[in-house]
């Protein structure tokens, strides 16, 4: 029963989602099911918070390795919670100030780091160790230089456009076709109960 009920729920939900695609009248029910998902998500957030508190609270209490980081997480979480509950979340509140002055810049910093990571990744991959890497390097040079109007007379922007619209797009579409079929096949296996690894085991 422990396995049969989840499999049955999964099969019913999966079949409904496939069938509703062909039935206009099923749209309201589809929207209702999506609303239920929001409710499930709201409950699962509680699970997530409990996990954070359990993991980092435990580290803090037992003074385990890197407990200082855990104390920062717990402090940050409590601070935001209190700021939200006491002062509200509207404009000009402490919650908004913390969000705008701390969280957003930190997020922007992480995003900005991507530029450096890109440079180091590009350096590694553009080392011409093989034919593939050489082709990649040549294509990348054309595409990057092709962004500049100065090289119009050498037809480099045209070559860059051809690389993007030709070989690049064809490869992307080929991958997409495979991905689509892979998705459909996985979904079918899950709905039919053949693929059960996501349930933790394939056996009762």
């Amino acid at each position: 029963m422990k396995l049969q009920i989840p499999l049955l729920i999964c099969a019913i939900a999966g079949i409904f989602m496939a069938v509703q695609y062909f039935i206009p009248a099923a749209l309201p029910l589809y929207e209702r099911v999506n609303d239920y998902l929001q409710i499930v998500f709201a409950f699962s957030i509680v699970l997530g918070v409990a996990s954070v508190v359990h993991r980092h609270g435990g580290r803090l209490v037992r003074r385990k390795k890197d407990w200082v980081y855990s104390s920062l997480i717990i402090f940050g979480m409590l601070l935001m919670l209190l700021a939200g509950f006491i002062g509200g979340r509207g404009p000009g509140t402490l919650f908004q100030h913390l969000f705008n002055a701390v969280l957003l810049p930190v997020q922007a910093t992480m995003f900005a780091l991507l530029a450096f990571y890109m440079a180091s990744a590009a350096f590694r991959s553009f080392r011409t160790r093989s034919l593939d890497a050489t082709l990649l390097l040549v294509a990348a040079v054309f595409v990057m230089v092709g962004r500049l109007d100065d090289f119009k007379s050498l037809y480099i922007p045209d070559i860059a456009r051809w690389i993007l619209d030709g070989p690049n797009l064809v490869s992307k579409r080929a991958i997409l076709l495979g991905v689509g079929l892979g998705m459909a096949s996985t979904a079918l296996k899950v709905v039919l109960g053949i693929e059960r690894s996501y349930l933790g085991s394939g056996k009762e």
Partner: protein
Amino acid sequence: MTCPAALGVLLAAGLLLGRPALAQTGPPLPARDLRVEDKPLDAGRALKISFRRAEGDIAGGASGVARYELRRMSPGDTGFVALRSFSPLEHTEAFGTDDVGLSPSRGYLYSVRTYQATGDYADTEPVGPVSPRRQWFYTNKVNTLVAVILFCGLVIAFIQAARRGRSLFIRRIAGLDAIDEAVGRCTEMGRPTLYIPGISTISDVATIASLNILGQVAKKIASYQARILVPNRDPIVYPVTQDVVKQGFLEAGYPDQYREEDVYYVTNDQFAYAAAVAGTMVREKPGANLLLGMFYAESLVLAETGASVGAIQIAGTDAISQLPFFVTACDYTIIGEELYAASSYISREPTLLGSLKGQDIYKLICIILIVLGVLAMTIGAIAQGEPFRWVNEMLRVRGTGG
């Protein structure tokens, strides 16, 4: 009067005479041909409404009409309520709109009011009551239905064939073969394996594929009595990964080796998650990083940090825009559909392998159809008049909502 001035006056007079009536005198005239009909291929929530301009009002001209106002009387209403306005300056002879958010099988009355600049107005005769109707099949999706039935049929047929013992050849996938090597390396080095199941939700098929792989990987790691770390970004995925890993350890016969704190929730925020996982990589120094699932802009942050700590890295995603980052920063990359094939490939279970074969045959059919479609459209274009346009129609896929 100078000559140019006289010409200007003549031109202005000519323009005035040539224009339709600038301001209509007398009572305003109502709009014409108000039509209300059910919107096809919907859930019975919308009606299609169209009407033509009032007599004498010309598209783009100034005939004294200030605006047209569409009005509706719903069941239970005591009078008409304005829905939306249409400007007579629009260069169109007929106006149209969809009235959405209606209830199926309830009757609605419609009227159009023509306002003049003076404030006078004239109403059309009310049309209706008209009821929106539910449709039970998207008739324009027959081709998709046929394709779905064919695909399901092929996959199920090959699964049955595999169950009957037919041997099926599946090509080698280097990235998946390397998982064994990576897990073994971790065990030898006494370091944990870091498994990142992507940052998408459980409704993403790539996440489900990743969870399927996690089940197999957890079993392998448990059999080596090694450690696996699984940081989660989605709170719904988190309990599932916990259960999957726990079950893997149980099936391998080492339930006592499972550590609950190793499968944990981090945060729902994308870059906070990336920062936390990058921190884990630096502090825990995992021997192998498995990045399998759906990734977005954080992919390179994770992959580059992993590379910098010297971990063997196997990444797999169906996010095309992230694949180049993984290819450059990881040792092995599982590209697109290989991610979905991974669970079958690792488990080597015949029924799962059968589905891969069915998928391959369907892909072959798709390739043949693409070649035929390109040929038909090219011949059609050369012959002019596109006699093979029906091929294009036959192969067109329509999204949700028809």
